[in-house]
């Protein structure tokens, strides 16, 4: 029971990392991308190849996965980001499918028996989930803070300006292409990091698991939590994973058939969306021109919950 709950926390953490990336692309910059399965795949493969084929450390594979995925994001971003709305969505979806298709044709079995990660002599064994929870949620926390800072930096404000009105942003001297691509690359790199951590836990990489449904679920995580709201997407990741494993967690799967489990999941998705169309927490309020210094912000961040982060729903 507790053990299984820990597993949900691990998976939720991995999805939270992906959702942070997706949020950067869709929530901040307003680009509809359905490519996170592809980035997730590249990150997983990078770790698998570095740890298994080259026998190098997991910690080395982490930046490599991020950089490799970021690079792929850059290469596919430069041409495709000229597209708008659903055309961008379908182009990125196509790229995700291409990545999976190429990976499957490259080797349909994928990789297995990938060496474990270790830190100061401590081996991260999959059965010790507590260690993974600390590892993964530490990353979630770090990237949450980083992206929160980013959102309130010049870069982040530029991204939001691009989302709100591209023409207005452009006429204010914002290089739209540059910010779109930066946002896409950052988001992609997050997918890579999530893939890397997932591989560290499963120790097996299978091309078949990176279907477009993964991309869709990541997008759903962001929509469910609240677009452009860092805290919300992490909550969304937790909720999506929690409800998808709820029947197993409660032992309900011993009684009901597997299809019923999926139907419950589908029903919960519909009900939650009807209940909170703007996302559980809704969009984050913008704070233009924050006068605080970086240190003040950081200290405020840990004390803020009282008044600062009150969410405004439905601000589209």
């Amino acid at each position, binding site marked *: *029971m507790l*053990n*299984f*709950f820990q*597993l949900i926390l691990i*998976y939720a953490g991995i999805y939270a990392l992906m959702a942070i990336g997706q949020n950067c692309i869709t929530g901040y910059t307003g680009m509809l991308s359905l490519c996170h399965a592809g980035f997730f795949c590249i990150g997983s493969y990078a770790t698998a190849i570095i740890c298994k084929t080259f026998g190098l450390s997991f910690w080395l594979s982490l930046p490599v996965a991020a950089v490799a995925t970021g690079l792929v994001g850059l290469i596919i971003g430069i041409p495709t980001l000229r597209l708008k709305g659903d055309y961008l969505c379908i182009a990125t979806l196509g790229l995700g499918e291409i990545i999976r*298709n190429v990976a*499957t*044709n490259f080797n*349909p*079995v*994928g990789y*297995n*028996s990938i060496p474990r990660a270790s830190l100061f002599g401590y081996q991260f*064994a*999959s*059965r010790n989930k507590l260690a993974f929870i600390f590892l993964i949620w530490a990353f979630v926390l770090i990237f949450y803070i980083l992206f929160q800072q980013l959102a309130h930096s010049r870069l982040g404000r530029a991204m939001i300006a691009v989302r709100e009105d591209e023409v207005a942003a452009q006429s204010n001297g914002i290089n739209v292409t540059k910010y779109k691509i930066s946002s896409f690359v950052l988001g992609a790199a997050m997918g890579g990091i999530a893939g890397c951590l*997932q591989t560290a*836990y*499963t*120790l*097996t*990489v*299978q091309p*078949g*698991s990176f279907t477009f449904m993964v991309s869709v679920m990541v997008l759903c995580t962001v929509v469910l939590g609240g677009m452009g709201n860092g805290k919300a997407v992490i909550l969304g990741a937790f*909720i999506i994973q*929690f409800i998808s*494993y*709820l029947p*197993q*967690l*409660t*032992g*309900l*799967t*011993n009684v009901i*058939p*597997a*299809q019923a*489990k*999926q139907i419950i999941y589908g029903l919960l998705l519909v009900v939650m969306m009807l209940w*909170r169309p703007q996302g*559980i*927490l*809704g969009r984050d309020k913008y704070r233009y021109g924050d006068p605080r210094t970086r240190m003040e912000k950081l200290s405020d961040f840990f004390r803020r919950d009282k008044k600062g982060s*009150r*969410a405004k*729903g439905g601000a589209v």
Partner: protein
Amino acid sequence: MRKAIALLLVAFICIAGAAAGGSGESGSGDTYKIGFIGPLTGDNANYGIRCSNAAKLAISEINAAGGIDGKQLELIAEDSEGTVDKALAAYEKLAYMDEVCAIIGPVFTSPALAVAQRCQEDGIVMISPSATHKDVTAQPATNPDGLNYVFRTVPSDALQSDVAGHYFYEVLGYRKLASLYAMNDYSQGLALGMKETFESLGGEVVAEETCMVGDKDFRTQLTQIKAAAPEAIYIPNYTVEDAQILEQAAQLGINVRFLSSDGFSDPEIYNLAPDFTDGVIYVGPAQAEASTILSDFQAAYAEMYNGDAPDSFATNSYDATYIIAGALDRAGSADTTAIRNEVAATKDFQGANGTMNFAPNGDLVASQGVYEVDGTTPVYIGSFQIVDNHIVQVD
């Protein structure tokens, strides 16, 4: 808003608490729990559902006959959706929440590889009915005792493709074959293995076409194969793909013989492509001589599941359940090490798929059967083994 979140959290905690209460009484001593992991929903659910059905059938038979030492068996089937992360979640639940004494599955190779690692680590017996890849039984035993906990009741694809290559070359006398296989571990493993054997004997694979699992249109590949004019076409795929390939080949006017693998032993093929199966030769599980176990199983399965017919993987799953039950009986307790020792000590088990033994690494040691389809009825030709690089008929 804040209230809503709070409410949500409270609801979660309540559910979780209720569940904790509910699952608290599990692990009590009057049942032996056996886990099953396989795809029960999603694109490949059919294979998982058949395997879990067969295991359920075996368990209900054992229970009807009085169970094991008066204790009943219980099968807990968890869905893997055919992916690694879901399979690991299923494992987590079975191993830690239900505390099962053995696991049947996973059905597909990649989840099987992931779960095999955990089973080796935690010391829980795992018997896969259908993961054919060679690496499944090559996982290092990482448990403190260094014992192997991973077994399978399906032959490794190396064994089957070896028999296939020899049979096609030596017995059927083919020299030019074509193959059309799906890019998954099962089909690719068989096709490449067969090619290696066949070409080492002096034959030639003149066209090698691939597809993806779930593809529906094979006409492009078949048109290319037709242009290469092979003597026969090897299609080691799952039933649905094979059915489509046979039908579309006929539509394209291809009339050479088709050769296949144990995926073809699924009787569903005769519902999907009844007009096109005549003359297909396939390598499948060997049958026990003068034994009615297989036909009894098929009849019981059809009766229990509204006329649905089991495929060879379901048959393997049925055998796996009986092997575990036998081991439980001999071990006399739910101690996983004792069960593992008894499974490993299984000797000449008479199952629906003939006589079965395990190699030290957990691989199945068995002959391979060859069948030829007459209309819509497979006719058993005999079982074969490879001795000194030559095919030998065993019975």
